[in-house]
């Protein structure tokens, strides 16, 4: 299967191309630069270097969130529009699942997380089985302190992975992966995860998984409750 994978859910930008299920090209940057400007040139470059023409693609896999709203939207919009134009399926992969894949040889629990401001993180719990990760606890938005306490109570070794590790280092302590490269999700992991997924819904319905309501919406709901 020929797959294009896209991740713009954090400051990490990843583009990968699989040809016949093998990595033919992969590019990862971690810089505070604009995804909207850089994503399409990156896709063009990786595809050209991998000698892959758009019409040869069988599928597009996209990091569907959680992460930066705007970032996720850039990846999802690009992925779904390309898929629609080419008449191929698009599948969403959790950006946390893709990050957890970096712990695929770890014996214990894997907790990938992305900073969500005000002491909160987007996170979930994964476990390695036969060199692949599977989700054991849903992705969620939670106060990081609360999450760490919850995970520790499981009394199992735990591996924390995050592009925002520096911001939360004290909290996760020595359980974070040591190699800095392991804290950046790989787009090829999105491609592999996406290859296994059943492309269920129509391309038109494909949308980000924000894991959080828009602020105006939650405020409005709160106001409604107060009125009651």
């Amino acid at each position, binding site marked *: 299967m020929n797959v294009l994978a896209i991740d713009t859910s954090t400051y990490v930008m990843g583009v990968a191309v699989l040809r016949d299920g093998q990595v033919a090209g992969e590019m990862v940057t971690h810089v505070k630069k604009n995804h909207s400007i850089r994503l*399409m040139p990156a896709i063009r470059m990786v595809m050209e270097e991998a000698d892959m023409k*758009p019409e040869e693609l069988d599928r597009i896999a996209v990091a569907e969130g959680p992460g930066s709203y705007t970032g996720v939207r850039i990846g999802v919009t690009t*992925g779904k529009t390309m898929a*629609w134009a080419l008449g191929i399926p698009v599948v969403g992969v959790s950006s946390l699942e893709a990050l957890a894949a970096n712990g695929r040889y770890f014996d214990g629990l894997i907790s990938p997380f992305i900073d969500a401001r005000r002491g909160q993180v987007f996170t979930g719990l994964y476990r390695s089985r036969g060199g692949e990760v599977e989700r054991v606890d849903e992705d969620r938005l939670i106060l990081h302190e609360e999450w760490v306490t919850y995970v520790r109570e499981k009394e199992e070794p735990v591996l924390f992975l995050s592009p925002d590790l520096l911001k939360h280092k004290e909290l996760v302590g020595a359980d974070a992966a040591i190699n800095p490269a392991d804290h950046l999700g790989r787009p090829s992991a999105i491609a592999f995860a996406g290859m296994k997924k059943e492309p269920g819904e129509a391309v038109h319905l494909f949308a980000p998984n924000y894991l959080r309501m828009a*602020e105006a919406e939650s405020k409005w709901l709160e106001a409604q409750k107060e009125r009651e």
Partner: protein
Amino acid sequence: MGDDGMKINEELMILGIETSCDETSASVVRGGREILSNVVSSQIESHKRFGGVVPEIASRHHVEQVTYIIEQALREAEVTMDDVDAVAVTEGPGLVGALLVGVNAAKALAFAKGKPLIGVHHIAGHIYANHLVEELTFPLLSLVVSGGHTELVLMDEHGKYEILGETRDDAVGEAYDKVARTIGLPYPGGPHMDRLAHEGEASIELPRAWLEADSFDFSFSGLKSSVITTLHNAKQRGEEIPEETIAASFQASVIDVLVTKTMRAVEKHGVERLVLAGGVAANKGLRARISEVCEERGLKMTIPPLALCTDNAAMIAAAGSVMYEKGQFADDRLNAQPGLELER
């Protein structure tokens, strides 16, 4: 003078995409002037409860809608992407998150199908809505009035814009919405104000901001404050001013300034055609008054029908068609530009 000699190929097929605010729209235009389809999905209902457009919510809707709307536009036009010569998209100005969806969809489409990409200025689009109604002739003056803009734009030829004047504070549509909110009208307030204005009499004397004698700039914040003060003072006296009277008086002041300054610019620059552009061009009071004055002076004039005054992708495709013929293409690095300038 007049025709600048630029011809748009009659067979040129442009797909337009517009997502700068709360409308997701796609359109196919042939030969720069013929609308084959113009699909507009409005989010007004989603934003009503917040009393205005919420950028994050607008962006979320655009992602959900964008490919569906593009497909509808192609289907209604009875063409496929293979028939399309280029993809034109609004690159700015507008809400950055909203613009990003259209821009990235357009880039993805252009890349996947190997089509040229064109980045269009939203206001150029509004002006070119007129080209879909009647062939533009030059020199022309455009009065651009919307929720975000109040500008007088001079054009000597296709695709070239000179701003003669603009608002120094609120855009005219913004002033309408604020006053509407003050008198308790539901969002969006502009159309309600327009309707009420026709039912009432402009019996309250409200200020007109003429600014310096030779200036084509506008200012509406003083007028807005004056309405609020007038209402407040009346309340203090235990009087109640009917909302129709407020609406009519406010509208009279706005239209007086807009039309007077526009006509002054027409005279100074010897233009031969006046075009109206932007969402507030849907205002019945303004349309009536401008038509009347243009007729008196024998000035050629175009006003787009209501559906082409508000945000839509046909106007983007129309402006994009001119850019196509001029060879003004964008590349993969095209980005959303919330503060994009018209004169470039």
